[in-house]
């Protein structure tokens, strides 16, 4: 049991990060993670290590998130500006605060299923096969969600706005 708990514990940072990306709210995200951990520990008697633990935890988190979403019937609130990470210091290569805020806003306009997919691949670094399995969809469907998410983000962050990245 204690080894199992240790393994769960190593996944907590990733679960918090994924929940934050889904909800854009630190408190709601941590509530989600707490529910996820409680459910995981409660179910641990039934669990057999047939797949990676992390994928199983992501699935539990997503189920709770989707149920909450259905209940509340609302999309995440805008990410408050002061919750953005502090501006990178002096590194021109890193994205600026404006780009972060712009992308944060664009992320919220994505349908939940596209945001779920994009975050698993880009932020959590899951392989396409693992991400598809967590989401319970074929890899082809994952790729099309990824494609639509990237196209929408590009459109929202690159057209109609000054293309700051070209300024030297």
């Amino acid at each position: 049991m204690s080894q199992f708990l240790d393994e769960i514990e190593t996944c907590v940072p990733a679960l918090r990060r994924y929940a934050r990306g889904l909800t854009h709210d630190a408190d709601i995200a941590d509530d989600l993670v707490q529910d996820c951990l409680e459910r995981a520990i409660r179910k641990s008697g039934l669990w057999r290590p047939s797949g990676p633990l992390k994928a199983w935890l992501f699935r539990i988190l997503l189920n709770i998130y989707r149920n909450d979403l259905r209940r509340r019937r609302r999309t995440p609130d805008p990410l408050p500006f002061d919750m953005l990470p502090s501006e990178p210091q002096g590194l021109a290569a890193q994205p600026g605060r404006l780009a972060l805020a712009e992308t944060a806003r664009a992320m919220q306009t994505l349908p939940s299923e596209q945001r779920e997919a994009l975050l698993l691949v880009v932020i959590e670094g899951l392989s396409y096969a693992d991400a598809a399995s967590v989401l319970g969809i074929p890899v082809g469907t994952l790729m099309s969600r990824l494609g639509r998410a990237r196209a929408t983000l590009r459109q929202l962050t690159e057209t109609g706005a000054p293309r700051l990245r070209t300024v030297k």
Partner: protein
Amino acid sequence: MSRDRKIMTEDALHAYVDGVLDDYDRAAVEEHLVNNPADAETVASWSRQNEVLRSLYGHVADAPAPAHLDVYRIADNRNVLSGNWRRMAAAGILLFALGAAGGWFGHNLAGSTQLATMPLVNEAVAAHNLYTREVIHPVEVKADQRDHLAAWLSKRLDRPLDIPDLRALGFDLVGGRLLPAGGRPAAQFMYEDKTGRRVTLYIVPTQKGAESSFRYATFDGLESFFWRDETISCALVGSLPREELREIATRAYKELG
């Protein structure tokens, strides 16, 4: 993927951006991008997106997790509720014997415990008397909304509550309600058997602390078992024979949480 193919699939471009191609395929995509500026611009845009997204969310995983996300703490809370009930039940039988001999047997115990639990029994009995007599609205949320009831009261008491299933002992859930208990929220679940006898389970949140064994009280013509878990205190009240009530209390203890 082949170097010969002129048209690169979009999947290959995604895979390139996400860094999941082997050397051979990566080289093929790079060669393709040299001659296809539109695809090259797409790939550059997606790469920038990845970078911005990592800046946006990556820092969350570096921050220390708050105490309520401590995996061991969550597991501890559960073990108290589900793992040790046999030991608890055994202690309950012993104390029940003491109680049978001593009436309000709290008198036999150390003063601090008695003082701490007296209000709980008083409140539980008062709530029992008030609502079990109610015919039209004995509960706020009826048993047909059991899941909602559990979720709602778990939220209000800020603790996970699983409503005990007492059907094996002949008691069906009637429903439950939220009550005020000295400025805090309390939960009451009501059960009824085929003959119309009602028992109530009264639950108040407590600070994390030591669990207690089952204790027994006769109060105002009613019998009551009460106990303390790690984060809740409970009292089961009913006008039932002591042994029957003890069996229900043991069952409720086992299933809560």
